[in-house]
């Protein structure tokens, strides 16, 4: 599917046949993923595991998660009678649009994952309570759905008492007390134990499953994505595939995607909201040397036109990077970001403001440097398309 045209067929379908989802979702088991952060990664991991295990499934991989995008994904794979060759549809749903389509989902087997809920795109959604209301409206329309809720996110956990659906919750528990990870609102039924030796064990209501993992120090949010997938697999009765959730490495463009161009290594990190930015900053190396940062902030509709969320992010971790590190700023709101970091206590002498991306990359090319690029959605696409001209890369829309 070509760039920017991922939703046209679905748009036509929904306009001409407003009850299209009723027929499109009648003959397939749905796995819906919604929430603020981690939707795409969770969907991609789940789809990857299902495909690896020989289960046929469809997914809105291009990230078109509004109702037109979901309709496009479904209609491209079904035959004219609305039947599929695939067993599952793994669909990422925008949290604001979820309620608009959920009341037409007629499929008896629906699993709904709510990854987490935090402030995001306030210009579009209003406040967090509004987003919760949207999701609750959607759940109300799906009495048959099994909910997989993140018990460690207080906002997500607070949905459980408000619904009458079957709820399967998941959470992480460590040997060491960590208040950040704990929420008393909902006792998780699938618990991932992080032991001090680095071993992972998933405790389901029936059995404890040891989960080998390749990454020695995985970021917490990535563990949550894997745990969400493991919970879904447990719920679907595929517990034997759970260990692969924590050991699978899969290609997820724009999400900690490492791209090498000559001697320079680029790590492309998509940031959309304070929670995601905080998690991304926490994943920086503990003793960073030979690194530079690029902040590419746009304010287009897909990024959220209100960039005031940058002021809710905690950038104190950047104060500890070494003094030779340069901070580059690009995108339509580069100056806004520079002001934000100035107020975070960083020395403006180290700032380089360069709105033009090709010029920026000529200045970035220094041997043996590791560049961390924090980019909002549209600027991530711009940067990625520029990197595609420098090195052979799969196009974002062809993933």
């Amino acid at each position, binding site marked *: 599917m070509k760039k920017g*045209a991922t939703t046209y067929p679905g748009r036509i379908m929904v306009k*001409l046949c407003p009850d299209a989802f009723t027929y499109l979702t009648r003959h397939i088991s749905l796995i819906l993923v919604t929430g603020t952060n981690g939707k795409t990664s969770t969907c991609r991991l789940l789809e990857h595991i299902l495909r690896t295990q020989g289960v046929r499934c469809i997914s809105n991989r291009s990230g078109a998660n509004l109702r037109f995008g979901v309709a496009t994904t479904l209609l491209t794979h079904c035959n004219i009678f609305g039947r599929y060759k695939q067993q599952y549809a793994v669909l990422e749903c925008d949290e604001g649009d979820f309620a608009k389509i959920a*009341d037409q989902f007629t499929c008896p087997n629906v699993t709904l994952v709510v990854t987490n809920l935090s402030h995001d795109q306030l210009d579009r959604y209003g406040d967090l309570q509004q987003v919760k209301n949207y999701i609750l409206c959607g759940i109300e329309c799906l009495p048959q759905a099994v909910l997989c809720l993140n018990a460690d996110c207080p906002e997500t956990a607070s949905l459980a008492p408000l619904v009458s659906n079957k709820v399967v919750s998941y959470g992480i528990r460590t040997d060491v007390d960590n208040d950040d990870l704990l929420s008393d609102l909902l006792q998780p039924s699938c618990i991932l134990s992080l032991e001090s030796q680095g071993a992972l064990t998933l405790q389901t209501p029936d059995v404890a499953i040891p989960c080998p993992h390749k990454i020695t120090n995985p970021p917490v949010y990535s563990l949550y994505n894997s745990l969400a997938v493991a919970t879904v697999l447990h719920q679907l009765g595929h517990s034997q595939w759970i260990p692969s959730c924590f050991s699978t490495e899969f290609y997820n463009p724009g999400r900690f995607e490492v791209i090498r161009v000559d001697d320079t290594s680029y790590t492309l990190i998509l940031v959309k909201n304070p929670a995601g930015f905080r998690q991304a900053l926490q994943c920086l190396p503990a003793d960073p040397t030979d690194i530079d940062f690029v902040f590419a902030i746009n304010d287009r509709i897909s990024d959220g036109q209100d960039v005031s969320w940058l002021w809710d992010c905690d950038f104190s971790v950047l104060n500890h990077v070494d003094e030779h590190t340069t901070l580059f700023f690009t995108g339509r709101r580069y100056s806004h970001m520079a002001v934000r970091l100035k107020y975070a206590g960083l020395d403006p002498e180290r700032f380089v403001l360069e709105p033009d991306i090709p010029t920026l990359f000529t200045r970035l090319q220094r041997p043996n440097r590791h560049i961390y690029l924090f980019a909002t959605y549209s600027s991530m696409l711009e940067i990625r398309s520029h990197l595609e001209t420098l090195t052979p890369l799969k196009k974002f829309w062809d993933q």
Partner: protein
Amino acid sequence: MKRKIKHLIKSIVLRLLRLFYKILRVDSIYYQSLYDMDDIPQNVRFCLILGAKLFDDDSIPPILKERLDAAIRLYHHNPNTIFILSGDGRKRISNDAIAMYEYLRHASNIPKEQLIVDPAGYTTYDSIINLTHRISQKEPFVLLTSAFHMPRSLYICHALGLTAYAVYLPVSRPQAQVAYRNRELAALVKSWYRVHFHTPRLHRFCCRLRFVLTLLLCKCLFTAFDF
């Protein structure tokens, strides 16, 4: 030339629709059922208010406001009236049925027990059919809607064997009424079809057929233009 052909087709279709309108004797039914508010008997318990699409900013359009203001006047005339607010409730966050309820709650002192919201009034026909589930076939009711919409609504009631008292609403915006008139002519064909030929089974078949045809069209577009 192209414009002339378009104009010719439009005028032929309109003439046919007007002929159809006359054959069904819609105007005759309309004038027989039209009452002044003061002439409506006190024993009529129910009043059906038909909704209208809200503006994009979820505000109430003038054509809906005039119906609701008439409802308030009716309440003062007969305080025992139970109002059925029928609208399209598919949009869950804000829809005309809820907007009507909120308007009447704020603008009048009608008790909430006398306001019944019917969110499944997707079309005029649906609103009237839903009403028949609440009242008996012989029980008369007051019908409140705009002047341009009234003849078709009364035709549906008449065809279903219901007794409706149509409240005369003075035409507040004549330009808007003219614009809606052609739409009403086309909608009358649909209403006529639904009243006389519509069965649940046929409806399911039609919906399914629409889905299959739309899907086929989308797939053709998908292949032809390689979206």
